């Protein structure tokens, strides 16, 4: 209660401050109004084919509509000299005309092929989308920001085909995973390479993002060579435009609630009755009924405020913005606050020399629940009272406590704290110099700094801090990365032949330092190291470094903007690889053809645009840590003994370790039909070879693993994006976008004829199977005669023929013979998103859903709350409708007889806890309203929009836990922090 009151105070003070800023701006602008000469302008509006357009809008820029064309496409308006007329028509590119003199004019509007005409930034160059030979997806900043989050990956979920975003947690301080076109790596990183504003790495805030371009095939990603194997995500931040200065403000405030899906824990009575069915619990227990889930989760607040200014003249342009994002977790004592500042400046010294300076600072504060909270919410018993009669949390150490941990975490939470803060500073200096008409040079340079510190404090009054009289853990780290990329570009045209050649040399160097300390014996409420009396452990710290050096050349050719070809070559070297193999070469080829430019297509009116694309190339993956190839003795506190420093073997050498290589082929088609339907389809095959793999070794080798390049994995898939303009009326439009991706993964080979790369694991990576396929002892249900758990046991007869028997002995099935592939994988069969946008006059209604289908999730938490009596000091879940418990001989049940101490290892790892993880989620629904311009005009506001929006309001799934979403590559759901449902109110104003 008190909590939410405080946050509303904070919100209101922000709002007051911002309101003052506006009013000032508005008043100044109102005074600056001036009148000039009056003109009468008349004209005719036509389309491409000289057909007159009836019902086209004629407006004065920044004001309300002043006229609509008649049946002959004619209009007449009164304006002041210098006003800008904006003539618009549905699905046409609007035209702007400056009113200079009275009289008739003719306006021809062009059909809008917005996506195709858009300029896409692809790595080291930018091109119109229609001239690209490769598979890319672009998502504009506005499309991204329908969902409210400070995490770009989360915003991308479901918005681009083949880009699979999944998140393990609804914690606002945690991130999401991105997987492009299936997993093709075992032990190396699987996330795409991030490129911000033209250079590898860098920082950004979602509020400043102009667009995100995802490069998927080798022709596009290839220039990033050794680091492009997982795809590339290119982020472009906003920049100023010459002309009128613009000030924009937006505010989004809303409430969050945890999703609970099909999941419910037992209350006191339910649990007591359940326990009574197989034991004799203390009848007094039922007098207390605590709902720990409800005590752990709350309704919380999300706030997002952005203020920006942009503009400039022909020589200099600027974009300056500030953003405050604060999201409270639905879990108590958990929140994130992020402050972002960005300045992007561009200055032209001459026609030849352009300088760009980009500065971005992000300051983030994360607050974590010091006790975790999730484990407690899922497992604590309703029999234990959280609060005493005085309304204060009970100190569980001095009362009867039934739960396993003898701990009321709400008591300890009063005194303990855990938080982190980080500061990111990224500064770019880019120079573009035109040497001659055909030759230009560019240097892109960036220095990034990252400072992080975390602090966990366990007060001596709390249970966790009592043993040591208070504990404090501090960690500080600092990293710096320098990138310099130098580019020489030659462009020329010879008749219809256009060529461009690019040569690039690039170096990256990075270092990371860390220091962690732990102290004890601190006075209550003093989380500072100097107040401590002793150390808990010896401090730890160290430094990591890596470097990359890259050279590349690319040649780009097109004939009459009809036929396109691109070829490139990259040589890359990294300190991360073995001395014998530290450099590698990559090459890429691509071609495309715009069929609609051919004469024979001219007659086919239904097809407005048709392009075929094809590409092939190689890329790499180097995300494996900095020293993976070295044979090492570790020098650390864990290798010291009896107060003396020691060194213990920690890593087996592999001087031959090298890049993981991806060979990728892509065929694509882009087509526009009837000016209403835009379809892009891509078919691809990616084969990863020399997979970087942290291969487990038997302990008899003296090591637990070695990094090796092993075998190959293939991903094949098809993905499409379909946009349809269902209704295109002047005041009423409806647009639908559907994107879907189908990916199939198969392990083709492993080294030395091995069948599994991680034998015995639940996902062992077996030759011939999906690398995320589950391989587990198979649960065979419950023996109706006695309620025993049953598993499938695979037995081989004398002739070597395998057959299946059933057993209640888990140990006889937990082995290589009886583990079976179930045809179930943690990777989805398909995934995607569908969005609908409807506009009616000033109103916009949009709904966006994302879905994954056919993936299986190991619901690990059921081990704790669905275990047939194994843990009577944990709470249990309420069975969904279809589940039943064996009670008496003859019962056909899904769950074994409950027994104290559990029923024959029934909760051990098997296919029992494997569940269908398919889901469809209403990621966002927004109803927005653009305030009428005549109303805004009086306040000199050029546009204003209000909206109400809901994130994740509905999820359809059969999953038995609170939230079906998991990190799809791991497929394990364990003490899931549920995704937040948010209801948000927003306002954005532009001057």
């Amino acid at each position, binding site marked *: 209660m008190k909590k939410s009151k405080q946050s509303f105070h904070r919100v209101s003070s922000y709002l007051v401050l911002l309101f003052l800023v506006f009013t000032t701006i508005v008043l100044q602008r109102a005074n600056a109004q001036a009148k000039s000469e009056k003109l009468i302008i008349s004209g005719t509006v036509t389309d491409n084919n000289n057909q007159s357009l009836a019902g086209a809008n004629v407006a004065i820029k920044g004001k309300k509509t002043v006229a609509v064309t008649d049946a002959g496409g004619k209009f007449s308006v009164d304006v002041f000299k210098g006003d800008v007329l904006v003539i618009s028509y549905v699905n046409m590119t609007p035209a702007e005309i400056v009113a200079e003199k009275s009289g008739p004019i003719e306006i021809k509007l062009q059909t809008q092929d917005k996506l195709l005409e858009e300029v896409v930034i692809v790595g080291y160059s930018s091109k119109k989308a229609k001239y690209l030979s490769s598979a890319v997806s672009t998502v504009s900043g506005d499309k991204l920001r329908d969902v409210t989050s400070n995490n770009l990956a989360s915003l991308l979920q479901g918005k681009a085909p083949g880009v699979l975003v999944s998140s393990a947690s609804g914690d606002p301080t945690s991130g999401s995973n991105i997987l492009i076109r299936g997993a093709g790596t075992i032990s190396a990183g699987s996330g795409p390479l991030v490129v911000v504003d033209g250079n590898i790495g860098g920082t950004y805030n979602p509020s400043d993002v102009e667009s995100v371009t995802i490069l998927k095939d080798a022709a596009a990603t290839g220039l990033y060579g050794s680091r492009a194997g997982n795809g590339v995500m290119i982020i472009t931040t906003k920049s100023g435009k010459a002309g009128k200065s613009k000030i924009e403000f937006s505010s989004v405030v809303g409430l969050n609630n945890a999703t609970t899906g099909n999941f419910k824990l037992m209350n006191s009575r339910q649990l007591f009755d359940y326990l009574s069915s197989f034991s004799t619990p203390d009848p007094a227990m039922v007098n207390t009924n605590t709902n720990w889930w409800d005590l752990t989760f709350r309704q919380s607040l999300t706030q997002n405020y952005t203020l920006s200014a942009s503009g400039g003249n022909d020589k200099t342009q600027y974009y300056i913005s500030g953003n405050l994002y604060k999201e409270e977790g639905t879990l108590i004592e958990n929140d994130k606050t992020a402050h972002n500042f960005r300045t992007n400046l561009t200055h032209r010294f001459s026609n030849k020399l352009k300088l760009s300076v980009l500065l971005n600072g992000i300051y983030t504060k994360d607050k974590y629940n010091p006790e975790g909270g999730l484990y407690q919410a899922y497992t604590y018993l309703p029999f234990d009272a959280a609060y005493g009669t005085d309304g204060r949390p009970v100190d569980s150490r001095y009362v009867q406590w039934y739960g396993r941990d003898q701990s009321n975490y709400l008591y300890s939470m009063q005194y303990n704290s855990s938080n982190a803060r980080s500061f990111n500073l990224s500064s770019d200096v880019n120079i573009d110099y035109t040497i001659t008409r055909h030759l230009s040079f560019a240097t892109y340079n960036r220095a990034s700094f990252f400072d992080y510190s975390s602090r966990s404090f366990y007060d001596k009054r709390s249970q966790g801090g009592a043993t040591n009289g208070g504990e404090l853990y501090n960690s500080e780290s600092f990293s710096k990365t320098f990138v310099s990329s130098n580019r020489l570009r030659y462009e020329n045209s010879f008749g219809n032949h256009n060529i461009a050649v690019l040569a690039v040399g690039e170096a990256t160097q990075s270092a990371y330092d860390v220091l962690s300390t732990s102290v004890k014996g601190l006075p209550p409420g003093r989380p500072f190291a100097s107040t401590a009396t002793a150390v808990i452990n010896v401090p730890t710290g160290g430094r990591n470094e890596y470097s990359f050096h890259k050279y590349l050349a690319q040649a780009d050719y097109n004939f009459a903007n009809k036929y396109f070809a691109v070829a490139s070559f990259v040589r890359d070297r990294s300190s991360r690889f073995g001395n014998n193999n530290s450099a590698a070469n990559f090459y890429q080829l691509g071609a495309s053809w715009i069929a609609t430019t051919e004469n024979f297509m001219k007659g086919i009116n239904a097809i407005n645009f048709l392009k075929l694309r094809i590409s092939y190339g190689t890329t790499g993956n180097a995300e494996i840590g900095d020293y993976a190839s070295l044979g090492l003795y570790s020098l650390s506190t864990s290798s010291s003994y009896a107060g003396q420093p020691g060194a213990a073997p920690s890593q087996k050498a592999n001087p031959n370790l090298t890049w993981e290589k991806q060979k990728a082929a892509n065929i694509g088609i882009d087509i526009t039909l009837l000016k209403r339907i835009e379809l892009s389809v891509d078919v691809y095959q990616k084969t990863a070879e020399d997979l970087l793999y942290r291969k487990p070794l*038997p*302990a008899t080798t003296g090591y637990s693993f070695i990094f090796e390049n092993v075998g190959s994995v293939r991903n094949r898939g098809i993905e499409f994006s379909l946009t349809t303009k269902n209704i295109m009326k002047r005041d009423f439009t409806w647009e639908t976008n559907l994107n879907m991706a189908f990916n199939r993964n198969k392990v083709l080979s492993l080294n030395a004829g091995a069948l599994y790369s991680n034998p015995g694991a639940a996902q062992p990576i077996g030759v011939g199977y999906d690398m995320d396929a589950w391989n587990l002892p198979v649960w065979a249900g419950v023996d109706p005669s006695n309620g025993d758990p049953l598993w499938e046991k695979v037995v081989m007869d004398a002739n070597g023929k395998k057959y299946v028997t059933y057993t209640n002995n888990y140990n006889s099935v937990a082995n290589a013979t009886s583990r079976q592939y179930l045809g179930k994988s943690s990777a989805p069969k398909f995934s995607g998103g569908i969005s609908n946008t409807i506009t009616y006059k000033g109103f916009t209604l949009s709904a966006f859903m994302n879905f994954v289908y056919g993936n299986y999730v190991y619901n690990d938490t059921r081990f704790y709350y669905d275990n047939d009596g*194994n843990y009577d000091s944990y709470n249990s879940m309420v069975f969904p409708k279809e589940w039943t418990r064996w009670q008496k001989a003859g019962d056909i049940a899904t769950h074994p007889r409950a027994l104290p101490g559990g029923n024959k290892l029934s909760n051990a790892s098997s296919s029992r806890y494997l569940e269908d993880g398919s889901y469809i989620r209403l990621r966002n629904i927004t109803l927005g309203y653009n305030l009428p311009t005549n109303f805004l005009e009086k306040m000199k506001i050029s546009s204003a929009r209000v909206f109400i929006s809901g994130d994740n309001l509905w999820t359809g799934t059969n999953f038995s836990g609170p939230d079906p979403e998991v990190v799809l590559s791991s497929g394990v759901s364990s003490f899931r922090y549920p995704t937040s449902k948010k209801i948000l109110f927003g306002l954005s104003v532009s001057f």
Partner: protein
Amino acid sequence: MYNYKSIILAVTLVLLLSACKKNFEPSTAIDENSALTNAADIETATIGTYAVLRNPAYVRSSHFLMEYPGDEIAQGQNSSDDLSRAYRYNHITTSGHATNFWVQSYFVIGAANKIIAAIPDNSSADLRQLKGENLFLRAMMHFNLVRVFGRPYPQNSGDNPGIPVLKEDLTEEQKLTISRSKVKDVYASVIADLTNAADMMTLPKANPFASRQVANALLARIYLYMENNDKAIEFANKVINSGNYSLLSQSEFPNYFKMAPEGNSETIFCIRHTKTEDQDFSAIGSMYYSGDANGNPAGQAQSGWGEIYASKKYYDFLSTNPADKRQSFLSPYRINGVLQYNTRLTPNTPMYYINKYNLQEGIINLSSPVYIRLAEMYLIRAEANAKLGNAQLALDDVNLIRQRSGLSGTALHTVASIALSSKSVLDVVLEERWLELAFEGHRAYDLFRNGRSVVRNYPGTHALNVTPNNINQTITAADNRVVFFIPESERAKNPNLTQNP
């Protein structure tokens, strides 16, 4: 002009980049090629070998596997930790603790083998000492492994599957595909290593480290387990007569596990944990004790989980002699003099906390688990004499241990007194081992290697899998679960490892 400019630019660009090519070495690790090149580095690496013992995955997991099958402890409530399975004998092939123990043991062996291979036998005394210490560690690991995964030596004279034996001369391929040696062959290899180690170790070392008498002490234990009683006596005598060790006095004895180990004259070898190596709730002692730093017990989860207690069977037996100083290693949890019970099971389990793994140097959960101490040498000699029919010699050693614990008069045994109570000399020796070495990982194995059963008829979770609310459990020496399963994850990586039935 045009070409000239572009060439300059291109060249600058290339120079800029090639200037900073380099390789990096990690700051907290050294390259293996330079790790064992001189005596000082070899000493550093030897420290690293010992350090593995301190890893909870070794010291804690091995404690659970060796101690929890005994009848001096009682688990008062179900636990989600795999440790319950060691206690309840419902083993699983994917046991986390068995895997930890196996893996860490072979890490020690692997690290030791590198050093053993790096030191020629004719080196200086310093280097020979280090080689001996690594030989000792290798032997100790093999011996503990065969104890946990192989059947007791007296069963079938060691002709049962043991564990893989790793020597320093194996190829990489052999290490990947090695099979289990027989129990008797493991013993033979361990004896050879220890004999060799005792010969090489000539320098004095504090008890966290190996030295000649440490190797001899382990040999005495091994010969006893093999029922080579003469050799057991011979090596026990070497240690007892070395003059390096003495039993703590009656007054020092209750503080045995609270003092810093180096000052303890009775400890032969321990796994040293310094003040900054407290494992807190993950320590062995956290399972046994919860209370304050002065040793006053309190409710569960105050300083430790406190869910494993001394069994009622052990407590009652120890209490037959109220003067017995060994009672000070128990901290029964009482409130206003009333004994507390863990009520999660029916019948309830009395909360007899154990403090042998707590309160070292005033830190609640700190301890340096003792691997061998002098009292065991006397009891080894006593057991061997009992088996050789030297009744009086056996009872002399037993009484020495009893006197040290404050017992006297009729509390001491005579040949006549034990005949009256119809016990054998061996019965009395084994009882004394139980009283003296309780919670130190000996009991279950002492019974099994002597062909006796573990009998648990006292409150605890042990029999829950048989019938609800039954507290009776008997495990015979012939039971399959006297040994643990070979970790399934290791079998998956090396199919030549056969499984125990």
